[in-house]
C-alpha cells in the first residue's frame, strides 16, 4: 500500500450517553487508493464520514489527513465531498453552484467560467440543464452535479457518500471511468456505498463496519488479483480443475456443482486459464468476474 494519507486511529464516537456509534475504528488509506466503506444500516458509516470530514469530533482517537486535522483549512481546500442527501440551494443554477464553490476555494477568477463548464462537461451534465434552477433537477442530475461540485478545484481527497444512488447504468459506468482517471492522478477516494458491485469494481480495499466496529478489511484487487466464477456443462472433477488452474498460474478456491471460483493475477492470466480449461476438456459455458464476492464478504460468509 502507498504511504498513508488518511489515518483513522482508534476513533470512537457516541451521541448522548448511551448511543455509541463508533468503537475503536482504525484503518489507513494510501495516496491514490480507493477505499470502500460498507456495512448494514446503523453501522456508523455516515458518522465515520462525519469524523473524516471534520464535521463531528471523535470522543476518542483521532483522524488525520496528511498529518493535519480534517477541518484544517488547508485540508478542506483539497477535499471534495458528495453527500448522500444532495441538498443544494434550490434557487441556484448548476453553473452558479459550481461557480460559488470555485470562488470559495479561492481559485482564479479569469478561468472561472471555463473551469465551471469543463467540470460540468466532465460529469456529463447536459448543457441546457446548466442554467435551470436546481429545484427542477432529478436525483440523477443532482448526483452528477454533486460530483462536479466535489471535483472542481482538483481535490486530492474525495469522499463519496452513496455516489451511485439514483443514477442510471450509463451514469454509473461514467462514474467508474471518472474514478479510474482520478486514481491515476493520485486522488485518494473513500466511498460509502451499499452498491457492492460498484465498490468491487472500483475499490482496492473495502472496510466492513458492523455495530460501529471494523469487522474486516478486504483487499479487492492488486495483490489478490481477480476473482473469477466459471460455469461448465457436463462433467469436470475438482482434480481436473485444479490441474488446469495450476497450469495457468491460477488458484482454485471453491467448487460447487457445475460452478467454480478461481483467482488469477490479471486478465492475461484469466485468458490463459480459459485456454487450459478448454484444452483439458472442460466444456466452459460462462466465465465472469465474481462480483458476488463482496456480497459474501458483507454477509460474513467464509472468504472465497
Amino acid at each position, binding site marked *: 500500500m502507498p504511504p498513508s494519507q488518511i489515518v483513522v486511529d482508534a476513533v470512537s464516537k457516541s*451521541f448522548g450517553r448511551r448511543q455509541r*456509534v463508533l468503537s475503536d475504528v482504525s484503518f489507513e488509506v494510501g495516496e491514490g487508493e480507493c477505499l470502500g466503506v460498507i456495512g448494514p444500516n446503523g453501522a456508523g458509516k*455516515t*458518522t465515520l464520514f*462525519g469524523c473524516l*470530514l*471534520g*464535521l*463531528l*469530533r471523535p470522543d476518542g482517537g483521532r483522524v488525520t489527513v496528511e498529518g493535519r486535522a480534517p477541518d484544517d*483549512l*488547508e485540508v*478542506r*481546500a483539497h*477535499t471534495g*465531498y458528495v*453527500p*448522500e*442527501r444532495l*441538498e*443544494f*440551494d434550490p*434557487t*441556484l443554477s448548476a453553473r452558479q453552484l459550481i461557480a*460559488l*464553490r470555485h*470562488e*470559495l*476555494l*479561492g481559485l482564479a477568477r479569469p478561468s472561472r467560467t471555463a473551469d465551471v463548464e469543463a467540470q460540468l462537461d466532465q460529469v456529463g451534465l447536459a448543457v441546457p440543464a446548466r442554467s435551470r434552477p436546481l429545484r427542477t433537477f432529478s436525483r440523477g442530475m443532482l448526483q452528477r452535479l454533486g460530483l462536479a*461540485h466535489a471535483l472542481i478545484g482538483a481535490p486530492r481527497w474525495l469522499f463519496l457518500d452513496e455516489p451511485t444512488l439514483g443514477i442510471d447504468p450509463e451514469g454509473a459506468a461514467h462514474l467508474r471511468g471518472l474514478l479510474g482517471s482520478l486514481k491515476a492522478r493520485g486522488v485518494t477516494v473513500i466511498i460509502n456505498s451499499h452498491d457492492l458491485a460498484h465498490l468491487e469494481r472500483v475499490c482496492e480495499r473495502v472496510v466492513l463496519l458492523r455495530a460501529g466496529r471494523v469487522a474486516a478489511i478486504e483487499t479487492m484487487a492488486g495483490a489478490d488479483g481477480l476473482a473469477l466464477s466459471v460455469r461448465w456443462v457436463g462433467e469436470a472433477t475438482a482434480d481436473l480443475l485444479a490441474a488446469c488452474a495450476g497450469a495457468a498460474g491460477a488458484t482454485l478456491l471453491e467448487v460447487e456443482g457445475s460452478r467454480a471460483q478461481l483467482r488469477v493475477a490479471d486478465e492475461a492470466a484469466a485468458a490463459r486459464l480459459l485456454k487450459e480449461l478448454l484444452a483439458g476438456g472442460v466444456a466452459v459455458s460462462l466465465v465472469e468476474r465474481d462480483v458476488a464476492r463482496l456480497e459474501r464478504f458483507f454477509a460474513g460468509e467464509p472468504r472465497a
Partner: protein
Amino acid sequence: MSVFVTLWRYRVSRSVHRLGSLALPAFAVTISGALRGMFENPPDRAFALLPYVVAGVLASIGAEASSGRLPLMLTHPVTRSTYVLSHWAASATVAIGWALVGLLVEIAVLSAHGRGVYAPWAHAIDRAAWCAGLTAVLTCFSTRLPSWGHLGLFLLLLYVIGISGESAGPVFKPVLNLAEEVLVPRFVVHGTFDTSPVTWSHLARYVALVSGWLLCAVLLFRNREVSYASR
C-alpha cells in the same frame, strides 16, 4: 476576507431572491404604522421592524442545518467564525435594506398627508442599528436552534419580558428593562449625540451588546457538531 465577501454576497443575493413575497406585508406594516403616527416614536414598537428582521434572517443557520445544506457548506475552506459573521452581515444588510425602503415609503405617506419629517437620516440610522442588533441576537439563537426556532425563542423571551414587566415590582422592573435592552440592542441617535458626552455610552453599550451576541454566536457554532446522522 474574500471568503467572507463571497458568502455575504451569496446570502444577500439569495435572500433578496427569495424574499420578494415578503415585500407586500412589510410595506403594509410600514404604511399602517406611519398612518398611526408610529414614525415619531419608532423605538418603542419592537414589532414594527420585525418583518424586516424576518426578511434578514430567512436564510438562518438553523434552517440551513435543517435542510441538510450545512454539512456541505462546512466542507469548504471556511472557518466557522467567518461563516457565522458573514451570515449576520448578510442578514443585517438585507434587514437594513428593507427597513430603509420602508422608511422611504413612510416619508412618502406622511408627505402625502402634508406632514413634515424631522431628521430622516437619524431615523434611518436608528433603524439600521436596530436591524443590526436584532439580527445579531437572532443569528446567535439560530446557531443552535433548528429551522425557525431562533424566531420562536426570541418572540417567547420578548413576550415573557413584556408580561412580567406589567406585574413586576420596583425591584424587578430594572432587571426586566435590562433584559429587554440585552434582547433588543438599541441605539437612538438623538439620545446619544444631542445631549452630553456621557450619553455616548449608549453607543458603547450598543456596540458591546452586538459584539457580545456575535461572540456568543461564534463560540456556540464552533462547538456545534454537524452531521446528517445527528440531525
